[in-house]
């Protein structure tokens, strides 16, 4: 590749990587803010009940039990969100590594759920095998999956289902993602070059009534 197009491509990758990272972290921080708002209001409600008790009102033991349970549930929710975010943040630690594909797809799809939920799109994940490891770039693989899902979301008014499934052998891993066709599409040049970064290729195929994107990962040889 000539120097100028290569530089332009690397700049494009950098810009898109930052946009991708920003989109995911913004979504996660929005969710966490909701959790903290609920905890904040719960604290406020406890203050209200305490004040009421100090004024001679009843101490509602059952209500306190419910409040305590809901508080625990929100804290657990917050911890889950933070752990997923932490896993995502650490995907930039190693440019290439052996990646557990079903695990990566699961964690990433959970991070995507708020974004797909805003369009009322149900994201469904299926794994044909639980053990599927391949050498790839975890960050760029997630970025490719994100771009594929994002285009389908842009083509969706509201509602519907998006299925993602993983399968494979010792030699290669496959990630199949439903395509919702419409005005928006992936930039073919950009996708080809991103596929190089992950040690794989992307194809669009027809399977019955559906169209699917298939990411095939064979590792770096």
């Amino acid at each position, binding site marked *: 590749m000539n120097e100028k197009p290569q530089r332009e491509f690397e700049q494009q990758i950098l810009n898109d990587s930052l946009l991708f990272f920003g989109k995911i972290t913004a979504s996660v921080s*929005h969710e966490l*803010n*909701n959790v903290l708002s*609920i905890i904040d*209001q*719960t604290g*406020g409600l406890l203050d*209200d009940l305490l004040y009421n008790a100090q004024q001679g009102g009843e101490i509602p033991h059952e209500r306190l039990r419910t409040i305590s349970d809901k508080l625990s549930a929100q804290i657990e929710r917050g911890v889950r969100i933070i752990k997923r975010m932490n896993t995502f943040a650490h995907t930039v630690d190693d440019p290439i590594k052996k990646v557990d594909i079903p695990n990566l797809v699961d964690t990433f799809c959970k991070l995507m759920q708020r974004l797909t939920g*805003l369009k009322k799109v149900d994201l469904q994940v299926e794994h044909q095998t639980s053990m599927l490891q391949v050498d790839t770039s975890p960050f760029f693989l997630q970025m490719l999956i994100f771009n594929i899902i994002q285009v389908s979301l842009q083509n969706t008014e509201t509602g519907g289902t998006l299925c993602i499934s993983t399968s494979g052998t010792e030699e290669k891993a496959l990630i199949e993602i439903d395509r919702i066709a419409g005005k928006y599409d992936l930039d073919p040049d950009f996708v080809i070059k991103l596929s190089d970064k992950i040690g794989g290729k992307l194809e669009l195929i027809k399977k019955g009534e559906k169209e699917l994107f298939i990411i095939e990962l064979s590792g770096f040889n």
Partner: protein
Amino acid sequence: MAQERVLLVDDETEFTELLAERMRNREMDVDTADSGEKAIEMVKNKYYDAIILDLSMPGMDGIETLNAILGDNPDQQVIFLTGYASVPKTVEALKKGAVEFLEKPADINQLIDLVREAQIKKAELFEKRAEDSIEKLKRGKSW
């Protein structure tokens, strides 16, 4: 003034239920809706002094909901309560007719003050419309 009537709109139902309970403990009449679509239906059937509305919701977002509500009820007082108040979104919401734009977590006392101000403002606007209608009628009859 009469009891304040408030509609809380947010897809985080745990949040709206808690806030509603706290506001009811402060003698307010509070309803909740978990979507913009539901809120629009509820506003058709009940008078609310203020609507406290989330910006980011599945389906109809806060701005779309605001447009739909103000289309039928231009005097409706709407307060945005959202996770992230970017400058462009704040400006857009205020230009479209929201009365205030707050970030979560919000202080309940601040919210209550805003609801009370909204009640007064809405009543004043209603009174003004009624006076304007009477004036128009008088002019028409040449009284």
